[in-house]
């Protein structure tokens, strides 16, 4: 029997190839002490190359690897977002205590692994790649969360994230199994075809109504909802965000949402499009619930990272509306909002990292007092980020909310639009409380944080130096201030001239023109 090698479309696979290459090089570099210092530049280089490949493949729309990956507009846009947030995470973690303890390149290798998982997830087109990519994305993050061995919180957050994450993945797996069983196929388009049955309306109802399918969809929703921290499954988010080292929190908050929403779109709007009125009300309920829980929860927070965690839950609720609407406008609104969300959050986290380094790990809002007067270069990006998150006009946040509400109202989901408005109203209080702390209150002395007494412990594992953690000049470090300023500038720029970002988002929107109107 003749054995013909499969035709591999290297061009479309180039982003994944570049990332894998980078990952391998990083792992090798980690071995030799002398060149360990070059970890970050290599990581940045790989990310740059990947971004280049993605942009090179801007408008390809093909199936890859025998249908298991599908490279199209959604992939390009959302992968770019993941790559950008990864780059910023790398920049932020230069000189981060966690990175020092685990040795620079290993830390970055794990990060690269996670990014690879994300890029694959945005392309996943069948159940197997879906599950593998999701796990490839999560497992390095579990590890990364626990890297700051010095701090007890970091270990605790890592373990919590792992256990709850695995429960979510297990549920997801079981759901996928059920869907595979009832639809009879692995690739999403075939699943959709499978659910259509022989096209006769009653067969559709039978299949759609069949309990196993619905249970399957339910469990898959739980798995994905957990990953993107939608309401009832959000409990891990605040703890992990607070515990994990801040660059990782930044990366996790932004990149995971982008990747998981990619698979949300592909899975729900390609595979399960047949039973849209089955799951859209359920998702709407989840979205509304998470908006309320996220916004209300954030009110009572004093730690900035926990507050950003809760705000992440609320923003995830807003973004989910893009999927519920099941229209191209909905997807482009979602992608636009994600892009704005990336810019806002990275600016906020960059400032937070710089502030933490300078004041020794106190992420309490009251420690931000008087920042406006003493460090305007840090204060302005944080203020712009907060105003953008609150959805005030000159920023991309406002245009994002506007685009989302317009998509909702267009598809007769007006009550969700009002829910977004109400959620934003509540969110004003805690976002502006940060702005008030930065600008309007007098200078505050930084409160020292709890630190494990590392006296009795052996030196850090794998050669991590046990130097002290505060870096007085943190606020002037280029790699900390640059992402903050760029993030804030991007927020304002896309707030005033949103058209390029709208086109970027529409690229993703009309990628699914074949499946939805």
């Amino acid at each position, binding site marked *: 029997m003749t054995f013909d090698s499969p035709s591999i479309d290297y061009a479309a696979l180039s982003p994944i190839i570049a990332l894998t290459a980078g990952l391998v090089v990083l792992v090798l570099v980690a071995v030799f002490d002398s060149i360990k210092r070059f970890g970050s530049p290599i990581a940045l280089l790989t990310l740059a190359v990947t971004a280049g490949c993605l942009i090179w493949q801007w408008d390809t729309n093909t199936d890859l690897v025998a249908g298991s990956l599908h490279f199209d507009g959604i992939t390009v846009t959302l992968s770019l977002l993941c790559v950008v947030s990864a780059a910023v995470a790398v920049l932020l973690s230069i000189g981060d205590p966690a990175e020092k303890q685990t040795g620079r390149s290993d830390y970055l290798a794990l990060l690269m692994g996670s990014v690879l998982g994300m890029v694959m997830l945005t392309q996943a087109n069948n*159940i*197997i790649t879906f*599950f*593998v990519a999701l*796990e490839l994305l999560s*497992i390095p993050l*579990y*590890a990364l969360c*626990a890297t700051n*061995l010095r701090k*007890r*919180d970091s*270990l*605790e*957050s*890592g*373990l*919590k994230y*792992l*256990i709850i994450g*695995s*429960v979510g*993945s*297990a*549920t997801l*797996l*079981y759901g*996928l*199994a*059920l869907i*595979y*069983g009832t639809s*009879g*196929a*692995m690739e999403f388009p075939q699943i959709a075809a499978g659910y259509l049955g022989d096209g006769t309306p009653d067969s559709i109802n039978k299949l759609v109504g069949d309990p196993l399918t619905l249970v399957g969809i339910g469990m898959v929703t739980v798995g994905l909802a957990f990953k993107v921290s939608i309401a009832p499954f959000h409990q891990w988010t*605040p*703890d*992990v965000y*607070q*515990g994990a080292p801040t660059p990782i929190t930044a990366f996790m908050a932004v990149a995971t949402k982008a990747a998981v929403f990619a698979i949300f779109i592909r899975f729900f709007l390609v595979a399960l499009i047949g039973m849209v009125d089955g799951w859209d009300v359920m998702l709407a309920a989840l979205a509304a619930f998470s908006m309320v829980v996220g916004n209300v929860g954030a009110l*009572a*927070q004093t730690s900035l990272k*926990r507050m950003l965690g809760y705000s992440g839950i609320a923003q995830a609720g807003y973004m989910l509306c893009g999927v519920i609407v099941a229209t191209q406008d909905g997807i482009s609104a979602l992608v636009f909002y994600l892009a704005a969300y990336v810019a806002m959050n990275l600016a906020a986290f960059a400032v937070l990292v710089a502030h933490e380094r300078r004041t020794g790990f106190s992420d309490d809002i009251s420690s931000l007092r008087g920042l406006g007067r003493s460090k305007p270069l840090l204060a302005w990006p944080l203020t712009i980020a907060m105003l953008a998150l609150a959805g005030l006009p000159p920023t991309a946040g406002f245009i994002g909310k506007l685009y989302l509400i317009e998509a909702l109202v267009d598809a007769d989901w007006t009550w969700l639009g009002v829910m977004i408005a109400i959620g934003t109203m509540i969110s004003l209080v805690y976002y502006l409380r940060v702005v008030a702390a930065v600008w309007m209150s007098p200078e505050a002395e930084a409160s020292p944080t709890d630190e*494990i007494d590392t006296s*009795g*412990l*052996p030196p850090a*594992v794998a050669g991590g130096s046990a130097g002290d953690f505060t870096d007085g000049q943190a606020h002037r470090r280029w790699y900390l201030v640059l992402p903050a300023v760029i993030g804030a500038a991007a927020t304002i720029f896309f707030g005033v001239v949103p058209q390029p970002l709208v086109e970027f988002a529409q690229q993703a929107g009309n990628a699914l023109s074949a499946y939805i109107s």
Partner: protein
Amino acid sequence: MDIEWYLVLSALLFTIGFTGVLIRRNPVVILLCLELMLSAGALAMLAFSRMLGDQDGQVMVLIVLVVAACEVVVGLGIVVAMFRRRLPLDVDDMKELKG
């Protein structure tokens, strides 16, 4: 044996795993229970693959085993790190992050 029995078994496995995670306090045992839940999913996948007659399900099961292994590795890694830090290996004592 038609497929219902396999599904019932996998559902049973899943619930046992889930309750194990809820009840036990030692992280290592929790990791074990997670393995159980993953294997329940794998079993269901196998059953359906057998019913549908194609090998996709079995390929998936192999991959699931690999992934489960990775998780356990990372999980145990963290548990060891915590043990070295002389932190109490009890899930209920991990209450630092709350509120």
